[in-house]
């Protein structure tokens, strides 16, 4: 029986890639550890190593093929003693025939184990569902002039462009963090910045979050405009003292004398199958701190327009990105200087029966739920908060006054969450508009489990939103 060699997943979030180059040909003998092919993703090129020994009986997917799904059979391997021709012709057994040997594995310093190709393809995890929900295309921001030309950009590119544009405009702006320069960013968000701006302004740090968060904060106090990248916000726990005690309180404590215009940015929230310590939404933590601005964009246009605004702000900003969204493409207006206002929510979809409030990757879930609800005759309005502090409660309350029902969708824990805060605001200021209790649809109140089935159960999804909406609309 020939062994099927399958397209590997080379990172926790990879779903497909380009088979850039075959380094073996049909008839070649390979042994464990031989490099067989080069695989490209949007983040990196990696080498693909053989695990089993045998002869390449057939190459199924030619080099240069784009969008090869993880788990697709790309070649057949005849085992020792097996006839190559018949192996190529015959069926095959599915095997863990190959594994990935990452050359430029873009991940964090606690690298999660590689999911095997077959496993990644067969299991549908909760985060995969989140990503699927984020396929929902948003309407253009109301801030974009009509007739503006749009270009498709990934969230990753949009963030990079925002930093590059602000760095071109203002020499005080610099980027500092782990792997931001030579490595081009652990998640490739800073790709190309070192080449354009040099190592004076794009600075690799040691693994020393507390230290470099303090260095950035001190530099901001001294008059510069640092953009501090955390490889993920999970690691910013090491640095939270400077974000809160040093950066957020400076202006107030000094009676307005000393400012701290700094941006702390990086991926936040659940990533794919990386377990509890790498999967947490810190939005509610930072949003509880006076003196901070907290932004959590959903799509690429917002990522760009809001990051530019964050860098220009005189106040310290926590800018929460989402790793699962980095590779998603959206329309971004082609404007010389596209800056969005901080603190303004956006109506993603108009509706009259119920208001769904969300932010970051949760917006995709809310939009997917709205589609499902539409099929059942329920017309949901979807609000993307965009900024978590200050909260645009006006937009939420105005929508509530129209729909009289509200569900908050949050990829994060329920307790002391943004959802809790919205609920409190609605109780205090929108009570008379409520025809049903506000419901929170959030992740489960547990550390995020690793197992695919448990992860799926733990994370928010559109079906849970649909169920909550049916409750508040009394159509269950």
């Amino acid at each position, binding site marked *: 029986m020939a062994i099927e060699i399958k397209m590997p997943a080379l990172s926790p979030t990879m779903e497909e890639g380009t088979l850039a180059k075959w380094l073996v040909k049909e008839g070649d003998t390979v042994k464990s550890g031989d490099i067989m092919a080069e695989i490209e993703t949007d983040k990196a090129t990696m080498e693909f190593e053989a695990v089993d020994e045998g002869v390449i009986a057939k190459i199924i997917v030619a080099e240069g093929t784009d969008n090869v799904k993880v788990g697709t059979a790309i070649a057949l391997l005849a085992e020792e003693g097996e006839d190559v021709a018949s192996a190529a012709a015959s069926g095959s057994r599915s095997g863990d025939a190959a594994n990935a040997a990452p050359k430029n594995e873009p991940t964090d310093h606690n690298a999660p184990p590689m999911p095997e190709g077959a496993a990644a393809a067969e299991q549908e995890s909760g985060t995969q569902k989140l990503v699927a929900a984020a396929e929902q295309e948003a309407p253009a921001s109301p801030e974009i002039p009509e007739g503006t030309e749009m270009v498709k950009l990934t969230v990753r590119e949009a963030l990079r462009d925002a930093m590059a544009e602000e760095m071109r405009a203002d020499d005080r702006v610099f980027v500092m963090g782990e792997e931001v320069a030579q490595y081009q960013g652990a998640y490739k968000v800073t790709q190309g910045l070192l080449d354009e701006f040099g190592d*004076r302004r794009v600075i690799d740090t040691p693994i020393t979050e507390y230290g*470099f968060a303090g260095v950035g904060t001190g530099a901001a106090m001294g008059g*510069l405009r640092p953009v501090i990248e955390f490889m993920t916000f999970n690691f910013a726990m090491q640095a939270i003292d*400077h974000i809160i*005690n*040093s950066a957020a309180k400076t*202006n107030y404590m000094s009676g307005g004398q*000393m400012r701290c215009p700094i941006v702390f940015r990086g991926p936040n929230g659940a990533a794919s199958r990386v377990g509890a310590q790498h999967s947490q939404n810190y939005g509610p933590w930072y949003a509880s701190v006076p003196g901070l601005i907290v932004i959590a964009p959903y799509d690429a246009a917002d990522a760009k327009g809001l990051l530019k605004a964050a860098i220009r702000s005189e106040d310290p900003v926590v800018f929460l990105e989402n790793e699962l969204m980095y590779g998603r493409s959206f329309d971004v207006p082609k404007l010389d200087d596209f800056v969005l206002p901080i603190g303004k929510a956006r109506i993603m979809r108009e509706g009259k029966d119920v208001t769904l409030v969300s932010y970051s990757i949760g917006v995709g879930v809310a939009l997917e739920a709205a589609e499902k609800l539409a099929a059942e005759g329920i017309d949901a309005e979807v609000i993307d908060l965009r900024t978590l502090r200050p909260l645009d409660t006006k937009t939420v309350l105005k929508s509530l006054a129209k729909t009289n029902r509200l569900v908050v969708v949050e990829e994060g824990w329920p307790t002391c969450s943004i959802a809790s805060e919205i609920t409190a605001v609605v109780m205090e200021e929108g009570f008379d508009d409520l025809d049903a209790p506000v419901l929170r649809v959030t992740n489960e109140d547990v550390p995020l489990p690793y197992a695919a089935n448990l992860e799926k159960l733990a994370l928010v999804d559109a079906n849970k939103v649909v169920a909550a909406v049916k409750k508040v609309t009394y159509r269950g």
Partner: protein
Amino acid sequence: MFPTVAKAPSRTSEPPIPNRERPAEPQPFQATKEQLLDFYKQMLLIRRFEEKAGQLYGLGLIGGFCHLYIGQEAVAVGLQSALDGDKDSVITGYRDHGHMLAYGIDPKVIMAELTGRAAGISKGKGGSMHMFSTEHKFYGGHGIVGAQVSLGTGLAFGHKYSNDGGVCLAYFGDGAANQGQVYESFNMAELWKLPIIFVIENNQYAMGTAVNRASSEDQLYRRGESFRIPGIQVDGMDVLACRGAAEEALAWVRAGKGPVILEMKTYRYRGHSMSDPAKYRSREEVQGVRDKSDPIDHVKRLLEEQGVTEADLKGLEQDIRKTVNEAADFAEQTPEPDVAELYTEVLVERY
């Protein structure tokens, strides 16, 4: 130096890696009579100011935490007198009154901050531990032990980034010297050759814990060795030694050779804060230091040797007392912040 307190360092011990360039052994500063008088006035102002602050605290006019600088005056005065006020920056922890006074900042606005008044340098919203003067490039006044070391490294990063020729003087205590972020900062400062002088004000006690009860290497000037940062131990009770060490350190840093550590061996006469009963040391220990090593008495003797009369010094003392009393009266009488100030300056911009 303090037989009952500190283990006297062996000044003749070989540096751990002798083949690496090190700053020269600092020489005591040769002060003119005017300079000496100026040091005396500044130190005496800090001493009298702090005594008055202690008094106002006892009267309930100053609240919260209040950390006095009494005994350590020579450090701030000696070091800061060597700085270029137009370029260099200073940052410190919460024991910050002396560092501000050494800049010549009006004692009235400092005392008014201690009493929480609108006229205080932070409009009464910062308090004793959170005072700043960006005009003097004094960046605080920070309440979290050790935070100012990373922040100061960031100020030094800014000096280098802007190529403004400035050096940052970052003060911290023997207690903060055990914080992890201090070493994270040492690493980056040397790696990037940042213009910073790390000043460890070793007053022998981290709150109530003696240095050698908390530090495996209690010769703190050696704490930079594994980062290749040279350290110098300095008699922090001698303002001329402090100034001499600052000159040497500044020459090293301004030459682009990276950071340097100054361990200032000093002593605080009062408790860690006003609420510290100081049971961890004896009255005799404190009295012994006061009698033998007081930094102000030391300069007073030098002045007398230079022919300054008792009457001249008395006149100076009276002027300083008057200044401090005026500051205290002002701090007591000037109004509290307007209640509307509660909500201002949380953010700079409106969103």
